[in-house]
């Protein structure tokens, strides 16, 4: 089991190395002649006007919240799906009940306009 995740570890380490080594090598090799235009945030584009930290719409938050809740549902259903072949009918009915109750929440969110984007 741990060896399965060792690959994930190797992946993370090699990704970090790949990026780190490339950037480090580039910083050694590239010529360094900075000027104001080059150092501006958008070298070719509009200068921003005012503060870039604007207040976001609350809809983002509600969508993220709906996502969290159904993420939790997914992670709870995942192990059940793994065991699905060996489950008795009673257990399957309970899973259906679980999903139905959550469906009520989704229906509520939908009808209340929480998913609207206008």
């Amino acid at each position: 089991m741990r060896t399965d995740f060792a690959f994930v570890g190797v992946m993370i380490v090699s990704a970090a190395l790949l990026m780190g080594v490339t950037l480090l090598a580039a910083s050694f090799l590239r010529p360094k002649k900075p000027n104001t235009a080059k150092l501006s945030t958008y070298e070719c584009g509009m200068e921003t006007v005012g503060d870039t930290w604007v207040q976001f719409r609350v809809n983002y938050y509600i969508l993220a919240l709906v996502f969290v809740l159904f993420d939790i549902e997914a992670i709870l259903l995942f192990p059940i799906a793994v065991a699905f072949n060996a489950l008795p009918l009673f257990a399957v009915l309970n899973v259906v009940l679980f999903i139905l109750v959550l469906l009520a929440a989704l229906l509520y969110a939908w009808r209340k306009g929480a998913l609207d984007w206008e």
Partner: protein
Amino acid sequence: MTLQQVIFIILAIAVIGSALFVVTTSNLFRGALMLIVAFFGVAGFYVLLDNGLFAVAQVMIYIGAISILIIFSVMLTRGMQAMIPRNAQAGSVAIAAALLFLILLLAFGPFRLVVDLSGVPILSALFRTESARVLGGVPWQFANREVPETYIADFGRALVDLNQFLLPFLLVAFLVDAVLAGAIYIARQRKPAEVIAEREAIAKEEAEELAALQPQPTAPTLPQGAIASTADH
């Protein structure tokens, strides 16, 4: 030192370091990003504990969803950059946390420390027996227990098994309903007409409350007889 211990120490340093950054930084947004690093380290702990499912759940829920939620709520906050949260109690809390950590380490850590508690009023009642004079060396019930290959399927079966965790499983669905309905009630944007009507109602109430709070501007009271006499003339 085994490889596992090395990895554990690296992860622990990453988690503690990023967590410290989260609580000490004055920039909420950077704090939220560093929180992801801490969450990731915790996912690593789950892997070391041989529970890949929880590691995946940690990445999916905490990094994939909750961090996003936190970042959104930071970005919802108006004037976030101008706000420099400061905590006057940071120093004393840090000392208290360090002390608590030391106590936990002594109480639950691998060391066996002999302390005579028989003279201490409350603690002696709590730790009555002879063995209790030894702090630490906690007999963890599940230490070094093998995790079976089929643990994910076992977990799945347990969730829908009447003899195991069916009730908590179904309870989670109702909990999620309550959370969603509540959060939508609190956070949903209302239509402009609704908002205006509400604001007006509240403004009216507040004006009334203010009027009730302020002493009534009473006219200088004349003696009862004086009014009566002027009316007579």
